[in-house]
């Protein structure tokens, strides 16, 4: 759906903001790009609808090379790609309904009655039917972003770009906006590319994720894989920040293993099953239990000692992914 082929973006004499990124976003998936501020995320997402032109490389949308599009061709492309912003980007001089109507008015291919009906339907969908006549300044941050989403969907795009769409919102509002995006993705098959610096956002709604550092993708994969088995230091740091974690310092005898289960297995009583009838000393040193978009996960750091430790470990290895760590 969206394909970036070795794209570069350099501004003047500065170091490249995007330095050779290749990635493909499949139709209907929610793809996240995470990185710290200055990693090049904002530039990267703007290359997709050509708000920024790549200095090198190609951008393909639906298999079509759009890198060199100009004029009406470019404007038609942009109408197929919605975009929402950290600061919402609403027009303060226009009412909520006028903001949502604007993309359709600019396109000029719908009648007044059609536009009116569509505005009503979009506002209904984002839960703002009662706020049509208000001005953006009268709305809360979450409501503003809902208007932004309704407006981005006005021209019925197949792709939605989210530029730090929840970064200006409190955690509860963030969850409600993410739930709305999740629902739109499932209902409309909307392909979503979002950029964020928050691992929580990625964990909650993304299918796949790329980690961006200094303009390069340093790690890419399914969210659960990357989240539970990060390989790059930047990924690890982002996860550690999201979870407010410190390295555990507890002492315990036995072998140290990291046990990871995802999907249905994560919700089974795997610890008791692995130790039933055995003489084992099990110490839980650290643990992460939660869910990514569609998959529950459990990841425990265990110290396993006692006479039957070997046997218990073998049983664990049969139902979970096991990684032995230096004690």
């Amino acid at each position, binding site marked *: 759906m969206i394909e970036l082929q070795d794209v570069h973006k350099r501004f003047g004499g500065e170091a490249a903001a995007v330095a050779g990124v290749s990635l493909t976003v499949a139709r209907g998936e929610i793809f996240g790009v995470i990185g710290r501020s200055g990693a090049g995320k904002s530039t990267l997402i703007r290359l997709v609808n050509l708000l920024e032109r790549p200095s090198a490389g190609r951008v393909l949308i639906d298999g079509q090379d759009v890198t060199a599009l100009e004029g009406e061709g470019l404007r038609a492309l942009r109408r197929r790609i919605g*975009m929402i912003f950290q600061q919402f980007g609403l027009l303060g001089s226009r009412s909520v309904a006028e903001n949502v109507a604007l993309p359709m008015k600019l396109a000029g291919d719908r009648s007044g009655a059609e536009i009116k009906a569509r505005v009503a339907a979009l506002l209904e969908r984002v839960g703002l039917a009662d706020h049509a006549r208000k001005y953006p300044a009268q709305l809360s941050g979450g409501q503003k972003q809902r208007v932004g989403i309704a407006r981005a969907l006005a021209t019925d795009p197949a792709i939605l770009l989210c530029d730090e769409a929840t970064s200006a919102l409190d955690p509860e509002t963030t969850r409600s906006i993410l739930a709305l995006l999740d629902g739109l993705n499932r209902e409309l098959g909307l392909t979503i590319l979002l950029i964020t610096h928050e691992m929580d956002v990625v964990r909650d709604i993304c299918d796949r994720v790329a980690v961006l550092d200094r303009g390069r993708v340093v790690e890419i994969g399914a969210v659960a894989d990357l989240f539970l088995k990060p390989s790059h230091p930047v990924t690890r740091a982002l996860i550690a920040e999201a979870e407010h974690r410190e390295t555990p310092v507890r002492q315990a005898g036995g072998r140290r293993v990291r046990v990871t289960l995802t999907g249905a297995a994560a919700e089974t009583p795997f610890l008791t099953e692995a130790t039933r009838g055995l003489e084992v000393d099990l110490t839980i040193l650290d643990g992460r239990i939660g869910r990514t978009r569609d998959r529950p996960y459990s990841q425990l750091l265990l110290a396993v000692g006692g006479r039957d430790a070997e046997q218990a470990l073998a049983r664990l290895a049969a139902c979970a992914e096991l990684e032995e760590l230096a004690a």
Partner: protein
Amino acid sequence: MSGWFVNIDWRDLGQATLDTLAMLGGSLLLTLLLGLPLGVLLFLTGRRQLLANRAANALLAAIVNLLRSVPFVILLIVMIPLTVLLVGTSLGVAGAIPPLVVGAAPFFARLVETALREVDRNTVEAVQAMGATTRQIVFRALLPEATPGIIAAATVTAAALVSFTAMAGVVGAGGLGDLAIRFGYQRFQTDVMVVTVAALLLLVQLLQTAGDRLVLHFTRR
């Protein structure tokens, strides 16, 4: 009752007020008409803007800065040949308007540019991302969003023009400032000075109040 206001010829004062208003009205209108597009161009050709063009921007900026740095009294005199060419005379209300516009339009253009910069970048990007043409972005997003700022800029410019019209008396433009200089200052008629200055103050006050009200009206809060 002997000392105060004896020197004042109320008909002169009335005529001077009308002259000032005519100069102000005419020059303000033209200043806005010329300065607004100039300000929009200054903004659009700026770095990383929609029509970013370093050469064009540098040229516009140079012209604007040059005109803004020439003292208005000098501009009045330097412009005389051009003024004669444009309006047929360098005297009176008509003769004052070209230098007033040339003096004020670049000032207003800079203020317009500043007002446009205040428009949230995400808002401009959002409209761009909708597939808007540059013209649509300017007329449907930038100008409406910057309207309160542009009105405030017009108000400041109008007040500056009031003081410029007073200087235009130097080239025989008439008006309140001329009255203040010729009678109030040169003939030591303090009462004339006081009354003309009071009239000018009232004018600036009225302009500012009207401007503030308009800004409030166009601010959606």
